[in-house]
């Protein structure tokens, strides 16, 4: 069943317009995929919109646009909570099903709400006054749709993220590391599955002009079947540039992230007897290319 996304989107848009944006700058995302240790100041609100393009499989046409709309609040100077509504617009034509390449995902162009999640972030150390920054994130997620295949699916996931940050040269340079672990439990057509999703990100950025940051993000993403670290489903490596602009009351970040390698490169034999494979990438549950445009507005009382 497809959930109608329009009312939810309109509601979020209405919220964005109803709240008058006033200048605030904490917690703006300098990276598309990597999280910094910054958090919202106490009592402040923000709205974020993430738009992620995932494109290209071993065969057929595959384009997915993931939309993540979030509203966050800072409870004190070190703790914030953000609520996200996650949805996907998916277009597939003759793409092998990564779960069984003997069949395809079917030809579809559909939009649907995938999940709802709540993210709690706590900062232990600030990179601006301590030798390094350290934050942790906990994000439980409840899902009703598989954003990769467009199938009805119920799932629960618990994302844990450890964030380390080191700033250099009066905070003009920063180096950020994220370690992500997500146990996930899914039920698709009555069939239960459990996995671990693992991500490691290492990124750097430089303030090359007032309001502008340019950087590089590197990501390794892995999945383990049956929540067993001995049963790796795939490992994919991505690297790409990131550009950030921060104005007084809003910010935007664009990251381009092509997959530069992965395993397994071969996914099996399709129904016509042809191997489904790529020369250096893994293209079952991952794509050839990702790009993410993030946009945020912060709401605060003028100090």
């Amino acid at each position: 069943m497809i959930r109608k996304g329009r009312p939810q989107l309109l509601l979020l848009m209405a919220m964005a317009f109803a709240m008058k944006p006033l200048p605030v700058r904490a917690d703006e995302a300098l990276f598309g995929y990597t999280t910094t240790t910054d958090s919202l100041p106490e009592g402040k609100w923000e709205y974020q919109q993430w738009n992620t393009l995932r494109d290209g499989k071993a065969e057929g046409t595959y384009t997915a646009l993931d939309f993540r709309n979030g509203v966050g609040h800072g409870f004190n100077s070190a703790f914030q909570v953000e609520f996200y509504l996650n949805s996907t617009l998916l277009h597939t034509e003759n793409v092998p099903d990564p779960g069984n390449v003997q069949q395809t995902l079917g030809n579809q162009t559909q939009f649907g709400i995938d999940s709802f999640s709540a993210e709690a972030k706590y900062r232990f150390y600030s990179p601006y006054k301590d030798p390094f920054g350290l934050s942790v994130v906990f994000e439980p997620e409840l899902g009703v749709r598989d954003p990769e295949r467009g199938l009805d699916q119920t799932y629960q996931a618990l994302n844990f993220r450890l964030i380390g940050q080191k700033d250099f040269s009066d905070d003009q340079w920063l180096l950020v590391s994220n370690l992500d672990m997500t146990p996930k439990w899914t039920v698709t057509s009555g069939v239960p599955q459990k996995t671990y999703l693992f991500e490691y990100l290492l990124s750097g950025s430089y303030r090359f002009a007032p309001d502008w940051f340019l950087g590089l993000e590197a990501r390794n993403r892995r999945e383990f079947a049956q929540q067993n670290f001995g049963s790796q489903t795939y490992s994919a490596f991505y690297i790409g540039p990131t550009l950030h602009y921060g104005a007084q009351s809003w910010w935007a970040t664009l990251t381009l992230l092509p997959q530069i390698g992965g395993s397994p490169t071969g996914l099996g034999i399709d129904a016509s007897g042809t191997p489904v494979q790529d020369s250096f990438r893994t293209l079952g549950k991952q794509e050839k290319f990702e790009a993410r445009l993030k946009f945020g507005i912060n709401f605060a009382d003028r100090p």
Partner: protein
Amino acid sequence: MRHSTNWAPVIAGLTLVVPAAQVARAEIYLTEAQATAVLFPKIKLTPRFIDLSVSQCKTIENASDEKVRDPHVRVWWGRKGQALFIDRVIGKHDFITYAVAVTADGNVKGIEIMDYRETYGGEVRRAEWRHQFVGKTVRDPLRLDHDIKNISGATLSSAHVTAGVRRILATYDLLRHQR
């Protein structure tokens, strides 16, 4: 089951939110003349801008534990050795320009934030935060969370202004013997 969905609401969601944003504007609060009048209202000051030598920069850096990014020092001197420095430090996105008034015996008389583009964290302009610097000398730690309070949500700005004042006091300490 799958069926087609109209893309229009999604595209609308992307395109409508972005233009709602406001364009950044710099906030200039005080000119040089105004800062001078506020910090040394009854004293005649004479400008004497100085280009620090490499060795002078090193001396200041050693004394303040803060890098000298610009060797060009903009300072106005009073007859008895009072000084007013106009300096800038890096904010999260742009420079913060501020003035530091130093008495003849090397105490901070006051500081003023002249130009602040990081609009959140504007609490650095508040009198109670700036008043923490009054009476500080080159011998004081001038460290965030030690003798200077942090500002929630503007840690970077408050840390950099604090470090800037520490560097200015070390600069004054060096220059007053060379006047």
